[in-house]
């Protein structure tokens, strides 16, 4: 998403996170196997953390200098 | 360099010999069960291995201390090797091998410990004599299972065990964590509220607190104010004497 404006990028990520949250909820309610549910929830959580840490918290700025 | 290596190695050999000579002193506590025998064996093997390691360091230190010192206020400099060659790799392999040996000894003896009846920790195996043990601050309750006999460390003076019989202690605690330790058998396990732990011993030596103070149950986990006094004497007796004692106890209960 390099060409996108900063605001739009953030909102797109937020929409993705919201969809993931809803899907996570539906998944948890719908799946009966404990192991599958646990694994699915863990993967979703890690994916969400990636989005938040990268796009919201700008973790890359720790090792990459800011542009301005 | 060998000018220094040979005398230092000699020093190491001498120190090791002195160290290993301590095995001549029979200083381990009384052996009351096969478990204790096994313990003494592993302890001695590890000690025999550990002494040369310790004396290696001591020999190197003492030799360097006496031979490489200078009083020339730190102006002189020593040899300039930096330890980037083979020697550290050899050292790494040697120490790893030693550690591997120690690990194998540990794992083998661990699997012996956890094998079948003389299992340790958690398990269902039954033994001919089961003593349900309840710990509380600051006393022990020993209940001979199916025998209708109960001993209290606060009231009764001795815990009797028959010789050459497997005894399983099933431990519970009603308040805090305690630990049942019998030094003569080298065995110990914690009593934890909410779960049952067990240990099994097979006394093979007659004895009592009067003959050796390690024939005792001792609480080994700090449990509060009177942790110190939470102990009880043990007497290991012949089967016949044990049965008679049990019968008299049962008679007392039924009366």
């Amino acid at each position, binding site marked *: 998403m390099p060409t996108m404006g*900063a*605001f739009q990028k*953030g*909102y797109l990520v*937020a929409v993705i*996170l*919201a969809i993931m*949250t809803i899907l*996570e*909820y539906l998944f*948890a*309610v*719908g*799946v*009966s196997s*404990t192991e599958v*549910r*646990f694994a699915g*929830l863990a993967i*979703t*959580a890690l994916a*969400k*953390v990636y989005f*938040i*840490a990268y796009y*919201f*918290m*700008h*973790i890359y*700025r*720790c090792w990459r*200098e*800011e542009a301005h | 360099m060998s000018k220094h290596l040979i005398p230092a190695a000699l020093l190491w050999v001498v120190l090791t010999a002195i160290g290993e000579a301590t095995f001549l002193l029979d200083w381990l506590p009384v052996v009351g069960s096969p478990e204790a025998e096994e313990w003494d064996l592993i302890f001695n093997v590890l000690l025999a291995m550990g002494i040369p390691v310790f004396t290696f360091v001591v020999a190197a230190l003492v030799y360097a201390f006496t031979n490489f010192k200078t009083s020339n206020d730190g102006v002189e400099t020593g040899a300039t090797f930096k330890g980037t060659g083979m020697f550290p790799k050899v050292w790494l392999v040697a120490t790893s091998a030693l550690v591997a040996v120690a690990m194998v000894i540990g794992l083998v003896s661990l699997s012996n410990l956890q094998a079948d009846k003389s299992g340790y920790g958690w398990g269902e195996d039954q033994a001919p004599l089961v003593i349900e043990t309840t710990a509380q601050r600051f006393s022990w309750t020993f209940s001979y299972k199916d025998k209708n006999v109960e001993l209290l460390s606060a009231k009764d003076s001795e815990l009797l065990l028959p010789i050459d019989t497997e005894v399983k202690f099933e431990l519970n605690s009603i308040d805090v964590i305690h630990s049942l330790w019998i030094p003569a058998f080298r065995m110990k396990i914690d009593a934890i509220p909410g779960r049952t732990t067990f240990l099994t011993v097979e006394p093979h030596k007659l004895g009592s607190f009067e003959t050796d103070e390690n024939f005792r149950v001792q609480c080994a986990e700090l449990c509060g104010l009177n942790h110190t006094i939470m102990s009880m004497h043990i007497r290991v007796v012949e089967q016949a004497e044990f049965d008679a004692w049990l019968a008299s106890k049962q008679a007392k209960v039924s009366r």
Partner: protein
Amino acid sequence: MAVIAAHGHGVESHGASHMSPEKRLRVNRVGLWLFFFSESIIFGLLFTSRFFLLGTHQEHVDQFLGLVITIVLLASSVTAYTAETAMEKGNRKLAQWALLGTILLGVVFAVGVGFEWSVAEFGLKLSEEHHQEPQNVVFGTVFFTMTGLHAAHVVSGVGMLVLAFIMLSRGHFSKESHWGISSTIMYWHFVDVVWVFYYPALYLVAG
């Protein structure tokens, strides 16, 4: 404690005599991340304790309420992001409004947790009349502790946001220099990250 530490990174000035502002910023940023790392171990240990004590067992919780407060917290992350991006673009007005929105959503989240506590069907005491099992008590213990610790972070985060809002309104911070706001907002996102794990662990894991 979080307030002190997180703000601490924002305002170091001594020791910078040989340090360019860019380097100072980078040092602050790495320090703040290490602080998050360190805090996540506290949260992680409680998270692990929950599974140690209960496995995946879970008492009944209000799923709708849980989903709503999760969305509220996510929404607050969006407004927080808006505030920081606005500062980077020099739009102070928007940043102010977005901070205000974040504060409000944070308060709504905290109230939501409080409400959840008041309607919870599990407690901390065994009682005959409610037929409570030990598991009920343990779930209460981990639920109140985990949400409580998280809520404490939310409340301290709100406090820091309020401070940042006041300072911004008084004319502090600029497009070039707004680490005080950035650090606070990073902290806020971190609180969100914690909830990303806590929400499934407390609400969803038993389906």
